[in-house]
């Protein structure tokens, strides 16, 4: 039988925060200048997770499909903000396009997960859907930001190549296919790396949590496998949609590369 879950109070969290102080000391000693960022990130971790914890209590208790779907959309919007914020080039409309790419990729994978794979009843059971959406979004966020960043950087830096092909009669897609492929390859790298290292080097948080909560490890492993496959599907779908959209957005309807549409930030 598994041991009882250890109850955590504020003191335990403070004890863990001592390790952050270690980071802070390191930053001061080596002059890394990370003190402020570290402070903000730590405070965000505490505030965001505690809020989430309290928010999920009523959601799990009185969850209605509308509430769960609303939370999913809100999470997608927040994830989109992160995606766009991480990229130093931008194109008009990229934010809204990324939002829809994330929504299609992540909602698609999450719904497939609860409806087809795990077959939860009802499908919107928040204990399943909300964490699932969160995990899928977190990974898709990485994939999209890498994919979009690379696409815009390559189209900007390798303008000569792309225009060289256009000049020889290539369509916008023929001229940019290599760029899109390269960006998508890179977007998939993190999830492929996690899938390769999982179990050997890393024990994923969800599986750890399930084991700590007393699930049989073999059940926890199955859940984790399913989750990773759903994540891979979401990253692929979301990144493809976002990358294709942004590639199309920097060409006009005359197969011209309009690099002035790529704006640099900062």
């Amino acid at each position, binding site marked *: 039988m598994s041991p009882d879950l250890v109850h955590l109070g504020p003191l335990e969290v403070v004890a863990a925060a001592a390790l952050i102080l270690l980071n802070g000391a390191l930053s001061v000693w080596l002059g890394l200048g990370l003190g402020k960022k570290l402070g903000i990130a730590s405070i965000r971790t505490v505030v965001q997770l505690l809020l989430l914890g309290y928010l999920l209590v009523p959601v799990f208790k009185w969850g209605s499909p509308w509430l769960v779907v609303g939370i999913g959309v809100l999470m997608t919007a927040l994830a989109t903000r992160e995606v766009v914020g991480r990229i130093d080039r931008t194109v008009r409309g990229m934010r809204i396009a990324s939002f829809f790419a994330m929504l299609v990729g992540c909602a698609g994978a999450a719904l497939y997960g609860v409806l087809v794979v795990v077959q939860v009843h009802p499908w919107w059971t928040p204990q399943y859907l909300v964490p699932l959406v969160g995990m899928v979004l977190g990974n898709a966020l990485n994939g999209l930001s890498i994919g979009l960043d690379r696409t815009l950087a390559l189209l900007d830096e390798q303008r000569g190549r792309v225009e060289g092909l256009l000049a020889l009669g290539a369509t916008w897609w023929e001229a940019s296919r290599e760029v899109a492929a390269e960006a998508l390859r890179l977007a998939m790298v993190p999830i492929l790396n996690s899938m390769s290292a999982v179990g050997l080097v890393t024990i994923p948080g969800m599986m750890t949590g399930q084991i700590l909560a007393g699930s049989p490890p073999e059940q926890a492993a199955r859940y984790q496998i399913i989750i990773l496959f759903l994540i891979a599907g979401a990253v692929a779908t979301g990144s493809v949609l976002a990358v294709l959209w942004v590639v199309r957005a920097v060409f006009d309807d*005359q197969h011209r590369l309009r690099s002035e549409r790529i704006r640099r930030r900062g």
Partner: protein
Amino acid sequence: MRFEARGLARSVEGRTLFRELDLSVEEGRVLAVAGPSGAGKTQLLRVLAWLAPPDAGEVSLDGRGPSDWGVTTWRTRVTLVSQAVPDYPGTPRDLGDVVRRLAAQAGRDGPDPIALAEAWGLPAEAWDQRWVKLSGGERQRAALAIAVSRRPDLLLLDEPTSACDPKSTAAIEAALSGRAAVWVTHDEDQEARVAHDVLRLGR
């Protein structure tokens, strides 16, 4: 073949490069474009190739504009060869293969680019070397040979021999004689040798 541009205007970042510009090129004739750096010669070629939008004006080939031909077909017929050949992936042979497979290039196979460039002093081995390993002059000749091998009606040449030695330059000029071209050059001697008409752009 008759190529025409009427009333072309283009400004970049608020600076007018040219406006109300007319030009025409007939079969077999070369229009040289001369002018100081920054006069808009390259931009003019980009507009003619429909790679950059003009602020005003229109271009036509045998009375039909880029949209009538289809933009990609237009560029197979009115083909720009840039002065600085970009770092394409792979080798010139790879680029030749990619170009041959473009939808708009179907059925346009012409002379073998490797043989063409060999006459300009580019050894056949160069076609299997990576672009980044080739010199500026070697790249120019490979890129030009690929463009010529697609049998465009009009070549838009931006300083096509700027990195070539006199011998290759003479061979290229000889090979291109009789082909319709808009030819940007800084070199007044070259202008005198190749041009039937001259368009001068000022700043």
